[in-house]
């Protein structure tokens, strides 16, 4: 018994200890392994021990081709419109009892229900397939290598494969791009190149090593075709901003603040309110730019208040000083706006 056989034996003992009902390993006895059964009989004739008689029978374990593709995790990959390098991961496992090359292809769904209930309605662009070269489970641009096949995957071994694409601008929340990753069993005899296609042994059995496809029809797959696929998807979570601008008269030179009228010299307060709709992505780097009417003058004594709140449609005077004014244009940058939150920019002008 060599060391690898000893390891096999100890592994199978472990399997017995944990799950007695299923003695077989996922891949099982390697293809081409001879199994010899030997029986012996001891007996006596006329009360005298005779020589032991033995008999044996040997057969060869054939090649069972089985592979699985599964998405990593059980949720969609949330993406932003315009996002570059959106990543979804799959695990490709060789459950055969022989080493195989696995040809890998990614295709986009064309409509229909995707992996997580959404309806596929757009395609990611510049789709690429990468293997987790440094086996850290995360996509590392420049490190994880683009590929179209997995070279010489041993029995029971699995690899993590990333499908990477760009998300077009302009997609709305809950838009879905479904991606299907398929793996096809190929001969794994030579390193560094994709092996030949594999066909099942057809017709009569042979005494040599035959090939049997044993992949299942799980998740819409076709059983026993040497191909297995899984679907995962990108779901857009966009920010959904809307802006409203309101104004109110603060005072005029004659009535002051009591029932002021819109006459020259009156002070008018503008409020620009930016709302991110409920269920949207966090909006960042939101900036406001407002060109003042030519008949008004910016009130620099009041200044600009940013990040104020709105109550029942009315802007509150609770912002903090910020923003800037130059050449009749008021600018303000808001803090990040979470879903369902409104932030304001408030400033005043005088009517010329």
């Amino acid at each position: 018994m060599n060391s690898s056989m000893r390891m096999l034996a100890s592994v199978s003992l472990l399997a017995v200890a944990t799950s007695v009902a299923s003695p077989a390993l996922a891949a099982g006895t390697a293809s081409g392994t001879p199994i010899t059964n030997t029986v012996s009989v001891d007996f006596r004739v006329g009360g005298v021990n005779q020589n032991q008689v033995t008999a044996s029978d040997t057969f060869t374990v054939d090649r069972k081709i089985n592979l699985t593709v599964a998405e990593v995790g059980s949720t969609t990959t949330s993406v932003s419109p315009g996002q570059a390098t959106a990543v979804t991961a799959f695990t490709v496992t060789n459950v055969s009892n022989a080493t195989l090359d696995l040809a890998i292809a990614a295709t986009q769904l064309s409509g229909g229900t995707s992996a997580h209930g959404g309806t596929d309605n757009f395609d990611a662009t510049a789709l690429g397939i990468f293997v987790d070269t440094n086996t850290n489970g995360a996509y590392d641009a420049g490190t994880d290598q683009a590929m179209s096949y997995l070279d010489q995957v041993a029995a029971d071994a699995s690899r993590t494969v990333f499908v990477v694409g760009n998300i077009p601008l302009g997609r709305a929340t809950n838009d879905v791009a479904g991606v299907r990753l398929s793996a096809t069993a190929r001969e794994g005899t030579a390193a560094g190149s994709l092996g030949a296609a594999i066909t099942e042994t057809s017709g009569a059995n042979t005494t040599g090593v035959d090939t049997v496809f044993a992949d299942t029809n799980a998740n819409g797959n076709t059983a026993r075709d040497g191909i297995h696929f899984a679907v995962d998807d990108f779901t857009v979570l966009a920010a959904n901003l809307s802006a409203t601008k309101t104004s109110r008269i603060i005072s005029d030179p004659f009535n002051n603040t009591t029932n002021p009228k819109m006459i020259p010299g009156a002070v008018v307060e503008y409020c620009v309110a930016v709302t991110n709709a409920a269920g949207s992505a966090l909006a960042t780097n939101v900036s406001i730019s407002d060109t003042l009417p030519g008949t008004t003058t910016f009130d620099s004594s009041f200044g600009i208040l940013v990040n104020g709140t709105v109550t029942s449609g009315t802007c509150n005077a609770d912002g903090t000083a910020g923003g800037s004014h130059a050449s009749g244009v008021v600018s303000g940058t808001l803090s990040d706006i979470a879903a369902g939150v409104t932030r304001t920019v408030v400033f005043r002008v005088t009517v010329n």
Partner: protein
Amino acid sequence: MKKILLALFALLLPVAAQAAGSVSLVSEVFVERTETNADGRSVTTRAEPDMVVPGDNLVFVLNYRNDGAEPATDLVLTNPVPDSVSFSGTDDASAVVSVDGGETWGALAALTVAGADGASRPAQAADVTHIRWVLSQPVPQGGAGELSFRGVVK
């Protein structure tokens, strides 16, 4: 041509032991498959082990025959379970098994093995390393018998 065919048959046939004593022995293996036929009934077939993959059910059949002129007594047939096969039982209640490489023998229910935590637990079919039949009756001249057990390709 006939000669070649015969030679091929000789290769295909299980190896029969030389009758060194007076008892001959033949070991054969079959693959047992259960399929559902068109009527929805499950049909079990036995085939030569040409197409065998992990998970297949095997039936090991042992045939013995007394070719000698005298009755043979105290027959003990011993069959180690092959490494890549997991024992899954025998229909023959007279068989005894070993779970420790042939050191101790008994009915499976009476045997124990050390579990992963070192504690002893009841032995399971998959723990069996050897199976043995001890024949209490002499086998008369020309007398023969067939014994069998089952296993699964690991």
